[in-house]
């Protein structure tokens, strides 16, 4: 539920589909681009995209990381057969990029566009306004030459029309006869950016070919909360891939699915599956503080996961969530024989029914009773809110019946004090 990166492929396809409807004289980008992964049917691809055989091609991975040239991951000016061979040699291979190891799974192929100048354009959303950036010095060196970047502020209420003339004025003289073309392009790009609910859009570089503007490289983030407004415009194939090297575990994927399906909020990021401290915390704000406190007390390496559940989740949703956590936690005992520690933390709920959510947790605890004992588990609870007394009492009784040591506290106990208690091994 926030700003999320999309593939260059989808960014460019969207641009080709919609950009010209935001510009008086279109810039004619055709969106010749294909996405290749391990399931690609090359024959079909060739048939549907005749340009693949006619033109010299460019290929590169499309997995939300930059500086691909630097890592030798850009192939330029080759025919289809050569490009295919190059991609196939790399598909499914491990690769370290910017210090993170991941698997290369997606590549894009585009026509190789002969060009001279490389320009930089970007639009960024910020609290008080949007920023349009433009530079004659596009490409990988734009950050080093930031002083040459032109910045145009677009006000929230007035929008681009209020600063339309400023865009013209900001165009450097060096653009010559292309000044109007680029100004029109930037204005159109902004309207497109706003209408499509982008949070960030960078075209670096783009080239000018006659009256056409061709984006060579693109980075884009969408505000995924706008999905209900943009489903059609974004296209049915839009996806929000995980960052490179961050392949979601099946458990994380499951929680994401549950999260997407319900009005409540469920989050799970596995940090260290062998860790001995398992925070299962209610509330977006409280969950961060519990993680902080574990780290402050020197147990960052033992923190197994970051997660939270909030927004009055149903009993069954809490049960599903707890089951995933307990399952991960009880897979193996600690090598040093320390107890696995479950912290069921939380602040004082405003309207979440604590007894109800705890009923889901208790159901999961009962299922994992034996496994919990095998990993020598202990449980520390701190929670307040509607029906918390009942919830705490039920939880305590359930754990004691299972023979799992448990300590429960209500709002009279400082929220994070239970963390220090839990971390006495």
């Amino acid at each position: 539920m926030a700003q999320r990166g999309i593939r260059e492929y989808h960014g460019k396809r969207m641009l080709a589909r919609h950009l010209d409807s935001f510009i008086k004289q279109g810039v004619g980008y055709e969106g010749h681009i294909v996405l290749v992964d391990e399931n690609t049917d090359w024959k079909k691809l060739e048939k549907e995209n005749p340009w693949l055989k006619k033109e010299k091609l460019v290929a590169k991975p499309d997995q939300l990381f930059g500086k691909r040239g630097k890592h030798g991951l850009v192939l330029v000016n080759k025919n289809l057969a050569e490009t295919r061979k190059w991609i196939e040699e790399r598909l499914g291979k491990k690769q370290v990029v910017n210090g993170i190891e991941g698997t290369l799974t997606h590549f894009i192929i585009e026509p190789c566009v002969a060009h001279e100048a490389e320009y930089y354009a970007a639009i960024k959303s910020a609290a008080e306004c949007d920023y349009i950036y433009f530079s004659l010095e596009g490409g990988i060196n734009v950050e080093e030459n930031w002083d040459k970047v032109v910045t145009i502020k677009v006000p929230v209420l007035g929008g681009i029309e209020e600063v339309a003339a400023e865009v013209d004025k900001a165009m450097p003289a060096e653009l010559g006869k292309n000044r109007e073309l680029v100004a029109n392009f930037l204005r159109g790009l902004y309207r497109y950016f706003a209408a499509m609910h982008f949070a960030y859009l960078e075209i670096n570089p783009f080239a000018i070919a006659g009256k056409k503007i061709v984006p060579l490289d693109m980075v884009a983030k969408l505000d995924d909360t706008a999905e209900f407004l943009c489903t059609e415009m974004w296209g049915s194939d839009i996806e929000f891939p995980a960052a490179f090297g961050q392949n979601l575990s099946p458990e994380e994927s499951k929680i994401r699915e549950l999260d997407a399906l319900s009005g409540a909020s469920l989050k799970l990021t596995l940090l260290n599956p062998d860790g001995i401290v398992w925070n299962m915390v209610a509330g977006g704000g409280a969950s961060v503080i519990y993680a902080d406190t574990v780290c402050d007390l020197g147990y960052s390496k033992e923190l197994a996961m970051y997660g939270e559940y909030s927004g009055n989740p149903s009993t069954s949703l809490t049960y599903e969530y707890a089951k995933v956590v307990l399952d991960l936690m009880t897979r193996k005992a600690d090598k040093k024989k320390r107890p696995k520690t479950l912290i069921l933390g939380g602040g004082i709920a405003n309207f979440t029914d604590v007894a109800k959510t705890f009923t889901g947790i208790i159901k999961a605890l009962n299922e994992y009773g034996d496994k919990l004992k095998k990993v020598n588990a202990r449980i520390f609870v701190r929670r307040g809110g509607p029906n918390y007394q009942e919830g705490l009492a039920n939880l305590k009784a359930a754990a004691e019946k299972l023979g799992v040591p448990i300590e429960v506290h209500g709002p009279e106990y400082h929220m994070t004090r239970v963390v220090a208690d839990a971390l006495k091994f």
Partner: protein
Amino acid sequence: MSRPDYLLFDRTTRALIYGLQTKAVQRMLDFDYCCRRDTPSVGAMIDPGKNGSEKMFWGKKEIFIPVYADIKSALMANPDIDVFINFASFRSAYDTTIEAMAFDQMRTLVVIAEGIPERQARHMRALSQQRGKVIIGPATVGGITAGAFKVANTGGTIESIIESKLHRPGSVGFVSKSGGMSNEAYNIVALNTDGLYEGVAIGGDAYAGSTLLEHLLRFEANPAIKMLVCLGEVGGEEEWSIVEAVKSKKITKPLVMWVTGTSIKYMPKGIQFGHAGAKADAKRETAEAKNAALKEVGVVVPQSFDDYDKAIRETYQKLVKKGVIKPAADVEPPVIPMDYAEAVARNLVRKPTNFTCTISDDSKDELLYAGHKISKIIGEGYTVGETIGLLWFKERLPRWAADFMEMVLKLCADHGPAVSGAHNTIVTARAGRDLMSSVAAGLLTIGPRFGGAVAGAALMFKAAVDEGQTPQQFISVMKKKNVKIQGIGHRIKSLKNPDMRVVLLKDYAGKHFPKTRLLDFALEVEQLTTSKKDTLILNVDGAIGVLSVDMMHGLGWDEERIQSVVDSGGLNGMFLLGRTIGMIGHYMDQNRQKASLYRHPWDDILYDLPVAD
């Protein structure tokens, strides 16, 4: 009603709630009552498209809160409302907020929904600034002014509100992003100071409608607030503006602040915490950088959240010592009666029931017929007869009995259009009445003369056998009493021209019933009656009646149980249920034909009126 700019809510503030949020509204009213407000803080609710009112509690008394179909009419009728609490979903929260903002009387708009597109959230804020309004949210629980006004679910249950002393003002102003943590913080403030004056949760989204700083500056301007407490969060630049404000002396009151998210450095890059805005893209946005900068300009920053309470307590005590704060006195709030539903949930009340049901239960997870789960009934393929057995006799009948019941249903399902039941159904259907009326018209003809002799026959024959009468004695007794024997006699059928239905019933009973004591007796009676008149046979009602009793004997039920079924007249149910099938058929049949209104012909009626003078 003018309030200073620094004050969003006071004891006379009235709000408009967008959405029929009766639970949240009741919590607001309970809070009001606890604070001994003179008037409810909820002026009206909006239920798009519907006007009316909603009954709510004011203490023990019930009051009406008006409900309007749209924002405009609600505000026109309630010029004192200046707070809008928007419960619309993320899809429509933007439009409704913008609409409400257009009214001059509006001062503060609270947007509860999470997941409003960032572009819309930003636009809302920009518009509010242009129009001089304050937005709290989106993605928030709201805010509270202790002892005066609370937004929706802020502060949680009434117990938790009283525990956190929110029913009377203290000296502390608090602001955070997190709604859940705001409630936690009110508790911390209550435990370590003389309590909260005002608290706000601005919401966890990246673009909030108002900022932490804006609220801190309001607190700074409010002479009743002596001390500021703030909870910041990793991500964004907001806390840096607080650093600037402290540095430039725009904030001079003591401020205790902690920025959460110090653990993000141990997390994978790009992790999304629970709040959309909690994501550090640059070093300046980290919790460490912000905490260090705050500390440097003189803000009281604890070591970690674990010491947050201590930092608040010490700062407060210093202010008391200096005489800046004169601790607010504790106030005993009035008791709010517990809701009946809650008392029930907590096992605190009991009351005698007015109804008892012993056959079916819809109050459990799964529907039960006489203790049998509906999934079992379907899964194990219970027959219709077995299902009837569950609901009529509270047990799963053996197949021979269940099949007998089904057989009766089939035999009774219809008997042509001329019988009184079908006739009435047809006439009613043709008068244009609906299914229920038409079938009911047909059913109402069932009685001792038509179809309803099943129970009567069972009763009479059973009594005779129980008393040990011979068939001849039985006939004589009935004759003496001048009572017609129910279940005997047919208009056209005779021994020579038997009713096939009776033949089938006798046949079945002979093969499957353990004993047919009553049937045997009835057949002996039939022998005697038919000797007088050919058509005085055991008819279908009689056969069903006596066989039903034989069935119950065969099931091994005790006398008392059998007698109670017979006495209740329930055995007519078999005819009633069966014939309903036919009546529905006749109704459909007439409808298919689009049959017009039936009017009985005059020439079929003898008019024989008295002659008047």
